């Protein structure tokens, strides 16, 4: 027995030593400040585009704060993390980081001093990023204006507040794969795959995660969660009534809107804001790869589009507000669910939403997508719709874009639930959502997701 105990302790000690050996990272020496002018401008320019594709600013900027100065609260199931200052301020930012330190952070999730970074920083994707791209991003970051802003400590639940757990997580989930070019696909697709799976870290939101917060590698892009929004599946399980074509993905990413899919909202909006500014070819590449995740042949695409459009039109044509204009065509039956709640939802819709969302004619000027085509309305849960109803959609100051007002104060919980239920039954053929009241409470409890970093 005693031998056995000793043995166990021995194994544990060896395991701990092994673990420490595996996970221990040395501090890298601080770098003397380097003049911005010493970086190759072409490299900086390349880095600017890559940083935008990686959306570094989205997490590393707090609302109302300086870009890249960090402080954005990232709420995770394990507690709150604050993004760090990645401006080249030597004291509070990464000004003392050598390129080696920067590369190590990107690839291994370890800061210059050797501390393990939490996987909210998506190094599990950046492993795929090439050395030369990381060098460009480094050049870009090191030529930003330094901002002195202290990093805030994470507020994680015990015992996760010990960084050693991040190290353990990495042992389990950090893979150092390599992307081999896919010869059967063209260069744009391969480029798109590189950006989407690597720097773009799209899977961070669009791939489901396991109970330890790691992406489920066997279900890439099957739909996930980002800041308590449903991040739609990009693969064949996409809830979108119309399968996304590469052109449609491009419209959406580049111009925030596609007439058959709708308007960007929520945590995706700042990503699009970046994609509006990077080289068009890269966005087209991202679109080509993304569309290929849900490979639909042209004939199917065409057929589904027609079916979805007909469905969306029908559901709009029978709205009370549209009755006069369709008096000559036979009336469609009301959706089956005509409970009191649904009636209330219908009346609220007619007064609050129909001004913009009834489609047809010159109206409405704001021209939203017909709700019958909206992924939000067809999604597996109500969160996105609830978010939008509560907080609305707002372009950045000085930039044009679609506005939808939030109804946070205007509608009660019960009214919003009734409205969402009505919209679901009226504009989709999917089963009713469940758990709306709880989801709404959670959304209400939180401050609005700020679309602009």
């Amino acid at each position, binding site marked *: 027995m005693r031998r056995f105990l000793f043995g166990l302790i021995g194994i544990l000690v060896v395991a701990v030593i092994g673990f420490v050996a595996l996970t221990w990272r040395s501090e890298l020496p601080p770098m003397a400040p380097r003049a911005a002018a010493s970086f190759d401008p072409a490299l900086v320019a390349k880095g600017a585009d890559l940083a935008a594709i990686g959306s570094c600013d989205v997490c590393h900027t707090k609302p109302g704060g300086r870009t890249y100065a960090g402080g954005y609260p990232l709420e995770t199931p394990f507690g709150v993390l604050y993004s760090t200052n990645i401006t080249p301020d030597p004291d509070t930012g990464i000004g003392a980081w050598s390129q080696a330190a920067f590369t190590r952070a990107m690839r291994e999730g370890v800061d210059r001093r050797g501390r393990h970074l939490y996987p909210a920083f998506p190094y599990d994707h950046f492993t795929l990023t090439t050395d030369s791209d990381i060098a460009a991003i480094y050049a870009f970051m090191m030529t930003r204006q330094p901002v002195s802003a202290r990093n805030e400590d994470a507020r994680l639940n015990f015992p996760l507040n010990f960084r050693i757990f991040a190290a353990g997580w990495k042992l389990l989930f950090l893979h150092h794969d390599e992307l081999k070019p896919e010869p059967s696909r063209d260069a744009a697709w391969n480029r798109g795959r590189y950006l989407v799976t690597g720097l773009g870290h799209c899977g961070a939101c669009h791939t489901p995660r396991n109970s330890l917060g790691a992406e489920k590698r066997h279900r890439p892009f099957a739909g996930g969660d980002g800041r308590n929004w449903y991040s739609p599946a990009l693969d064949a399980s996409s809830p979108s009534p119309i399968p996304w074509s590469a052109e449609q993905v491009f419209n959406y990413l580049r111009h925030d809107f596609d007439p058959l899919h709708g308007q960007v909202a929520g945590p995706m909006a700042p990503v699009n804001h970046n994609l509006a500014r990077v080289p068009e070819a890269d966005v087209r590449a991202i679109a080509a790869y993304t569309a290929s995740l849900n490979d639909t042949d042209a004939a199917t695409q065409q057929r589904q589009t027609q079916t979805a459009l007909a469905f969306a039109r029908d559901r709009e044509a029978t709205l009370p507000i549209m009755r006069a204009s369709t008096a000559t065509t036979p009336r469609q039956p009301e959706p089956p669910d005509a409970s009191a709640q649904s009636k209330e939802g219908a009346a609220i819709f007619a*007064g609050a939403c129909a001004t913009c969302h009834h489609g047809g004619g010159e109206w409405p000027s*704001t021209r939203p997508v017909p709700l019958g085509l909206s992924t939000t309305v067809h999604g597996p849960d109500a969160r996105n719709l609830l978010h939008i109803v509560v907080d*609305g959609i707002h372009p950045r100051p000085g930039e044009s874009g679609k506005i939808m*007002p939030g*109804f946070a*104060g205007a509608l009660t919980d019960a009214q919003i639930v009734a409205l969402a239920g009505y919209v679901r039954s009226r504009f989709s053929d999917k089963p009713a959502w469940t758990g709306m009241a709880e989801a709404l409470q959670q959304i209400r409890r939180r401050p609005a997701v700020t679309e602009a970093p």
Partner: protein
Amino acid sequence: MTELIVNGERHTVDVDPATPLLYVLRNELKLNGAKFGCGLGQCGACTVMLDSDPVFACLIPIVAVDGRRVRTVEGLGTAEHPGPVQRAFMDEQAAQCGYCIPGMIMRAQALLERKAGASEDDIRQHMEPNLCRCGTHMRILAAVKRAAVTMRSAEKPSRQREAGR
């Protein structure tokens, strides 16, 4: 028939329940305060208070208002006896054309009732949904700050009285 409680009074109106509150306030109840500016929830000219929140009256159907308290600028005071926010707008001469002002007052009222100690930054963020085209913003901000001060000082003695009871 829908029952509305506006500025403490009950009204029964016989209009389509989907009718936005704005048109009922203006036409049925003959209240001028809430203005039509966009009908799209983008400008705040129609802002009124619903219970304790500022809302766009142009986009809230009267069915949704049933049994909830609506307050308009008329409910805050009159030209002779203005409420503290109205008074502050007069004192600061915070209007050019004035079309946006009732909405501004209602949005500000909601903030100050919730947070009498609102900072300049709070006020700017809170007032964001409401547009003014004349450029009266600086005076509007000044008026809201002034109202905050008067409302705070009016609140204090009454609080003290309560505490003393």
